[in-house]
């Protein structure tokens, strides 16, 4: 009886220890996977920062202005090209009158 009990106890303890080993190695594998994901995140964060810097470099004002002037024919707006909303109607009327004068002339 006692021998059976010993064998049973031995088996239980052995299974418990085996389970601990399994749990331990599973945890280790999970931690490694987690570390790998963290490394990926860190790498992507670094890449993101590099891209932000590159974006900032490529979209700097001198480059945009050069493109806007040379390729799109844009120039800074003159003050008289701005129209307030409350003056919009009179500005349109005035523009129409000016064009009428030009056409008539």
């Amino acid at each position, binding site marked *: 009886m006692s021998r059976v009990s010993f064998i049973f106890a031995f088996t239980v303890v052995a299974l418990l220890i085996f389970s601990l080993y399994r749990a331990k190695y599973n945890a280790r594998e999970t931690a490694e996977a987690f570390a790998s994901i963290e490394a990926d995140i860190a790498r992507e964060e670094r890449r993101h920062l590099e891209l932000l*810097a590159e974006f900032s470099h490529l979209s700097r004002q001198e480059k945009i202005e050069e493109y806007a002037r040379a390729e799109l024919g844009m120039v800074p707006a003159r003050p008289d090209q701005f129209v307030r909303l409350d003056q919009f109607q009179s500005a349109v009327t005035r523009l129409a009158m000016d064009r009428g004068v030009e056409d008539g002339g």
Partner: protein
Amino acid sequence: MAVEIPWLSVDGAEDGSMNTRLVSMGLLLVFSVLAICGGRLALEPSSASVSVRSETGIVNRRADIVDRNGRLLATSVTLYSLRGNPQDMMNGALVADELVTIFPELDRDALVRRLSDKSKRDVSIKAGLTPRQRQQVFELGLEGIMFEEEFGRAYPNKELAGHVLGFVGNEGNGLDGVEYKFNDRLLAGGAPLVLSLDANVQYVLETDLAAAVGDYNAQAGAGVVMATDTGEVLAMASWPPIDPNQYSDIAAADPRKLNRVVRAVYELGSVFKPLTIAAALDASIIRPDDVFDVSGPYRVNGTLISDTHAFSGAITVSEIVSASSNIGTAKIASQLGRAALDQSFSAYGLFSPSAIELGGSEAPVLPKTPSQISTATMSYGHGISVTPMAFLGAYAALANAGESVTPTLLHEPEREVGGDRVMSSRTAELVMSMLRKTVTNGTATLADVPGYLVAGKTGTAEKPLPTGGYSETENISSFAAIFPSDRPQYAVLILLDSPNAHLETGRSAAATAVPTTAKIISRIAPMLGVQPRFEPRLQAGVPASVISSERSEL
């Protein structure tokens, strides 16, 4: 042959009991050891749980610097230094030729010599490679090439705001500009440092200042744009410009390293006149419609004070400002007295370095001893040298209803603003109207940008010579503007050092700094949300009342 082991025998009852006990104890011991091992295994920390984020430097990286709209001005990136081992190279010249295709700035012959020296095992080829450049080199498949990861501070906009940003040394500490001033804050990492600068306004200021230096063949230039209610500096430029990416490669004495806005002092000349007039108005020594005989000659202790353009008789205080009369301003300063003038200038902040958050702000150079002649000259900006930043800080009080303005490079919307009262709001209002008149009818008519109601004052000061006295051919031309004059929001100062324009246009501020400022205001005002305002156009045959009613119906 069987081997008898007495203590394992189970023949006798006594022996059997003893043996059972011994076996039990043995098994117990074994199980205990196994259980302890299992427990230790279960409880010991896992080596794989160490975070890699800190190892990559992402967590504790130096904080970024951005402008008021979040545009990136400075950031920390991983760079690489390129090294070579000549002992691992079959042909150093071939490697050098390949590298020069990617880095044409490398000295090919010197590189061939170094990479062919078989006595060396580690040769530095180039530092500061970007990840993309590293990949390009990697794809060449060269032998004996190594990369070393290093810290790198990048300024993606190159020269933009270079003097303000400063730079970071090899050890990762800021050594100039805001990189130096806010080093601890930036080293702590975290959220970006938000500057008050507006990258678009900064760009306009820098490009138009550079254009003016070229157009007028000036030796140097400086410019500042500031919000007059908060003191936030929206743009600060010094010419020649500097690229912070190359800061450490430039010699200390190189003129590019000098931020003329805060580290150089100038006798700014007539731009001081409105401040003298404000002091006298505030002390009730004069009234705007008082008249002064400025026909000259006017001598102070034997020294002749004159005007560039002679006046025939008496003019009002307002005209003294708009027409820029030295004699008139000196006479007013004489009535005010030196003590009161000093007290006012000190309250305006002209007697101390600017409080702007940049290291090394220069202190003003003041007359050594108070005298009648120094009082007279100081009143129109001679014999007193200040930094452009200190002057604009003082000048901004005129636009801020008489309250002092503390310039700042930080954008802090929650910050409480509100300076000390250094002059009455009525005085500030009166001087503002004189400055507007200077633009509409005085020495700065070229600054009358349609719609933006610019007010301002010119300054053309003879340049002091290192040997004493003043140059007859070189001057400091400046224009201090405020706009819009009816609801002041922004102050602009443009300074050109020794403009040497064509003879027909002249070298005075009216012909150099004024049109430059006008061009800048016309470009930055829309960016700043200032709406142009025009008086209704009178059309032939249409009474003004009709136009007025037309507007009121809309």
